[in-house]
């Protein structure tokens, strides 16, 4: 049973979320303030965090940044603010996905499940290479030469998807479907932000990417050409 940590300051919503998610078979821990979020995360070691952005004490973006320093645990932002800047800032701080209020429980559950689904293990050819970067699909380790690179599971999946078919162009919609498992239209900036984060970790020069290339008007592909 997967354990979720809910960080939400609205009491009624938090309680209702707990009930709803419990009925869908999750183990749920919840806190009401930003200040309690990190201790609760360290104590409970949840499999996934549902994070409100507007929180007393410490806001969601700060919490996100702090958790990402030590952990790649999936984070889904719950936001009433559909204002793009907030969502983008949350994603840039390391959140994997977002859900905009008001959301039906099914949507939330499917987002959670998508993030918790384990990666398919390819036992025959466990190592996937892209330029100097090696992805080990068994240990989920990423190396660039001798250096180990820490990718979140989502970033790993994104890079693996691109690297499995080098030089094949993936549109943002395809990536949303294959990496995020969206079956309906979602904001393609989700992809843009994560590509940027991924590049900042694996590219020599972010401004002049050699491994994850932009194909103007279409999407992205794995290099090198």
């Amino acid at each position, binding site marked *: 049973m997967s354990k979720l940590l809910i960080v939400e300051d609205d009491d009624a919503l938090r309680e209702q979320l707990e009930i709803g998610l419990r009925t869908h078979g999750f183990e749920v821990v919840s806190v009401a303030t930003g200040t309690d979020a990190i201790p609760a995360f360290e104590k409970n070691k949840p499999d996934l965090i549902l994070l409100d952005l507007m929180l007393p004490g410490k806001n969601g973006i700060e919490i996100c940044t702090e958790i990402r320093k030590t952990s790649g645990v999936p984070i889904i932002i719950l936001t009433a603010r559909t204002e793009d800047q907030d969502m983008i800032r949350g994603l840039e701080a390391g959140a994997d996905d977002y859900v905009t209020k008001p959301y*039906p429980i099914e949507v939330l559950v499917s987002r959670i499940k998508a993030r918790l689904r384990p990666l398919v293990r390819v036992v025959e050819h466990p190592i996937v290479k892209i330029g100097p970067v090696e992805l080990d699909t068994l240990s989920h380790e990423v190396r660039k030469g001798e250096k180990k690179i820490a990718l979140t599971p989502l970033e790993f999946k994104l890079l693996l998807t691109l690297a499995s078919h080098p030089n094949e162009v993936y549109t943002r919609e395809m990536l949303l479907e294959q990496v995020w498992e969206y079956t309906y239209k979602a904001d393609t900036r989700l992809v843009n932000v994560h590509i940027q984060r991924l590049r900042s970790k694996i590219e020599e020069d972010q401004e002049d990417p050699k491994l994850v290339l932009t194909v103007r008007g279409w999407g992205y592909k794995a290099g090198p050409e």
Partner: protein
Amino acid sequence: MVFSRTFKAARDLFRSTLQIRALVYTVALSGTALIILGGVLSVSIGNGLFSTRTDRALVESQRAKFTVSRLFAGMSPYNTWALDQTIQNVVPELESIGVSQTRLVAFIHSNIQTNPHKLSSPTSAGFDLSLVTDEFRTKVRENPDLTSQTIQIRRGGDSVPAILIGQPIVLPGGNHYELYLVYDMINEQQTLGFVQRTLVLGGMVTLMIIGFFSFLVTSWLVKPVQEAAETSELIASGDLDRRLPVKGTDVAAVLATSFNHMADSLQENIQDLKNLSTMQQRFVSDVSHELRTPLTTMRLSADILHAKRDDFGNDERRSIEIMHSQMNRFDKLLADLLEISRYDAASVQPEFEEQDLNGVVGTALASIQQFADSKGVYLDAAVPSGSVRCEMDVIRIGRVINNLLTNAIEHSEGRPVKIRVGQNKDAVAVSVTDNGIGMNDSEIAQVFNRFWRADPSRKRTTGGTGLGLAISYEDATLHNGLLEVTAKPGVGACFRLTLPKVHGVTEFESPLPLTVDQA
């Protein structure tokens, strides 16, 4: 060509610059005054000079007559030889008397034919006798006093004015002679020339001084006007804090003061309106956001109940279903309100990307098919082969098309809905036509208004928010595109969305017609 362009530029400058115009007028008017003054001066000085000269010439001629009389006094009329000698002396004698400049003398026998003693008719060297016309000679013969005439003589290649004075003289023995004296006016001419040159030069200098001073004066006068013009231009372009400096108490200061006053009240009004509209936008946005958290909670509660609705009795189950569907409707309304408030606050950040309109229309058709089927409406779609590429925000354009399709299906009264896609070199378009109830002109005028419904008494089947077309219109405008409508009551309605292929292009024609015909 170049000249005419230069001329045109000069004319435009002349028309556009108040100062240059004032300057040109001042210089032209004072120039005219100076020319008139110079002319009058020159003429009167000339007249004075010439009349002085003429008077002196007349006096000298009078004196010449006495000289001649003295020469011939007491001479015998019969000593023809002595007489002729004296006649010969007349010319050198007269050439040397008097103070005036060179003069020419002619002493001519009145009648050459009846000159029995063959007396000579001497003239000064260089006296062109053709200057003395027969007409003038007749006048001289008939007038015992002096007769004068102004003539032009040649002097060193130049034509010089001169006075010709003639008088009859009777010599002893009854010989009738005519004495002609020519006084040139070369000195007077030179003096006049000098005076005229001085006048012209002085006039030009005066004109330049006038031009310079009027430039100073006009720039001093025009400056406040120019400042006012520049400042109002700046205010018009949005720099509302601009004001004119107020100096002194003259009319320019009054202009500046009232201008500033006007700018103050304008700025106040604009600021008030801005604040009001910002407050309103903020309010709508805040309300929408604040509603979201309780709505989410209620929605989650409703979802849980909805999932378990079969465990309840009939009435409870139906209530749960109604609550669930109304939560969805509330949800949509809130989303649309937020979207509109985002447009009002100009905080929309579209993502333009080249996309195939055929694909977007296809996706919209697929998603609406179920609704069309439920209404029994056939979707008659025809798209051009190949791709119809255009720079667009695909989510927004998809939403517009979806909206147009939903509206058309709702109002088509079960008749087929026609969907067309077209493109030309500048633009792409999609049109959605239904043969339903249509609209009259006043309805067409309001169709993009917020919360406006074609017929308030009509049943709201889809639970549309009333903001759909208003948002679609904003979406089209965001793309520099056009969302247009035509309709006839009882015939149907046609909505056409036209988008420029390249974002930012504003000159284009729609590749599709905007018409609605009887099915």
